[in-house]
């Protein structure tokens, strides 16, 4: 049976870009452990000979006509942005101070 530690949950939160609090780590560690133990039962019947299904409908590549269609204008695209500048999305720095 799997077991997930508080440190592992902290690692998951970092991977998922969630700045969780210490209180949340305490809560989530217990809850995630219970959930993961419960869902691990899928292994009981998932034997090697069974092919996986990713999608209920068989997926085929879909193409559309290569023609120009109306799309969002610059103002529309930026309308929901938390910050915009000079007609572009303004974002925080992406490199470290010493990079």
């Amino acid at each position, binding site marked *: 049976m799997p077991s997930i530690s508080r440190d592992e949950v902290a690692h998951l939160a970092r991977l*998922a870009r*969630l700045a969780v609090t210490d209180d*949340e780590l305490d809560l989530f560690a217990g809850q995630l452990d219970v*959930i993961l133990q419960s869902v691990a039962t899928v292994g009981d019947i998932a034997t090697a000979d069974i092919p996986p299904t990713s999608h209920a409908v068989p997926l085929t590549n879909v193409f559309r006509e290569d023609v120009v269609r109306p799309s969002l204008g610059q103002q529309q695209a930026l*309308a929901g942005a*938390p910050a915009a500048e000079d007609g572009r999305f303004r974002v925080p720095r992406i490199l470290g101070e010493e990079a």
Partner: protein
Amino acid sequence: MTADLTRATAAELAARIANREVSAVEVAQAHLDRIGEVDGAVNAFLHVDTEGALNAARKVDEDIAAGAHVGPLAGVPIALKDVLTTEGVPTTVGSKILEGWIPPYDATVTRRLKEAGLVILGKTNMDEFAMGSSTENSAYGPTRNPWDTDRIPGGSGGGSAAALAAFEAPLSIGTDTGGSIRQPGAVTGTVGVKPTYGGVSRYGLVAFSSSLDQAGPCARTVLDAALLHEVIAGYDPMDSTSIDAPVPPVVAAAREGANGDLSGVRVGVVTQFSGEGYQPGVLRSFEAAVAQLKQLGAEVVEVSCPSFDYALPAYYLIAPSEASSNLARFDAMRYGIRVGDDGTRSAEEVMSLTREAGFGPEVKRRIMIGTYALSSGYYDAYYGSAQKVRTLISRDFDAAFATVDVLVSPTTPTTAFPIGERTNDPMAMYKADLCTIPANLAGNAAMSVPSGLSDEDGLPVGLQIMAPALQDHRMYRVAAAYEVARDAALGAPVISGVPQLAGVAR
């Protein structure tokens, strides 16, 4: 007169509007008034678009006055789950992370509703990102069940179901990833349909679990659901998983079923969905419904689908895995809120602070479960195994549908539970989806139709009817026949038993 309008079916309203017995504006105003009276107690709506609704209604009245051909639901008000984008009208997905976002485009479902002349009243409350079974995970407060306002209306589409049961709208749109249309339908005494996956376009549906998400109709009668189904369904080149095939003839099937004859129809009772964990009153209601199907001429047999016992764990790996990937787009850069951008923090720090502040606990739990299940070293044991279970579930459906036309079960194991009862126990909450999940994993059609009230608590129970992919019409026929027999046996539609909301005049 106004009360009359809010209690009418969509089919009746459309007919009365089309022959100019009543105007679409009067119908819209009656529902807006009703929302004003009762929604303080129900909280079904996150946003009411009074002006947009009245303008749309006015347009329908003008078209009818000009002798234009209008669709079968023109002028009928509808409530739209807040997971579908609406140009110029807020769309929050029940989350703080999208608070105040005004989409620049309509979802295909929204566009089809507008083109068919339906009058969109507003956006309905939901569990955040459609993750939940009670609507308690909404960042904007829970929706209350009109049958008992201390109880949950189901979820994630609790707002869309409660709006129907509170007579705030005759129609609504839900989305169903693991039961989010059908389970709220069951616990509010309303009809909820998950069409075949790919039957209704997902373009403009904010993604939770892309291989499972499916929008569908919610209504107070089977025929109304069918009429709405035909408006929203059909091929859409904007959704690569949309099925390029004719829409199943669901309206014709609902009308045929209403004749009350199910001779020659083979119905399979799923043996896995009973026993421990099922409320006795729910099982008694289900057994009575099966007896009525027999009386209507159906041939009923028991069918075993052993892998269905593993559908719940498979779902709670697949859906979070897809969600952890889908919700990565909420990065505080292009839309939604941004937290902590003080000029010194990096994009990554701002992203983490924003997601921490913008997502609620259930969304965080599922993102972390998905991140875990997809990580190297665990992938095969979790996500890989869940995908194999998905294969087994499809095989069980295939085997069952080789011998029966439809499968039936209770929609959910219990009636509406009290608000707060399961909020600290995620696994208990997940079990509300026990019977609905297999149809999402296999992608076939399924619906819930009220089967009366549980004899121990007087709360609504749902009968789930499942049909093969693209055979949606089969379940409509059975549901419509059952609805007629049920109303005859009970003496009135189930929904007429909704108590008067406290402090509100009917």
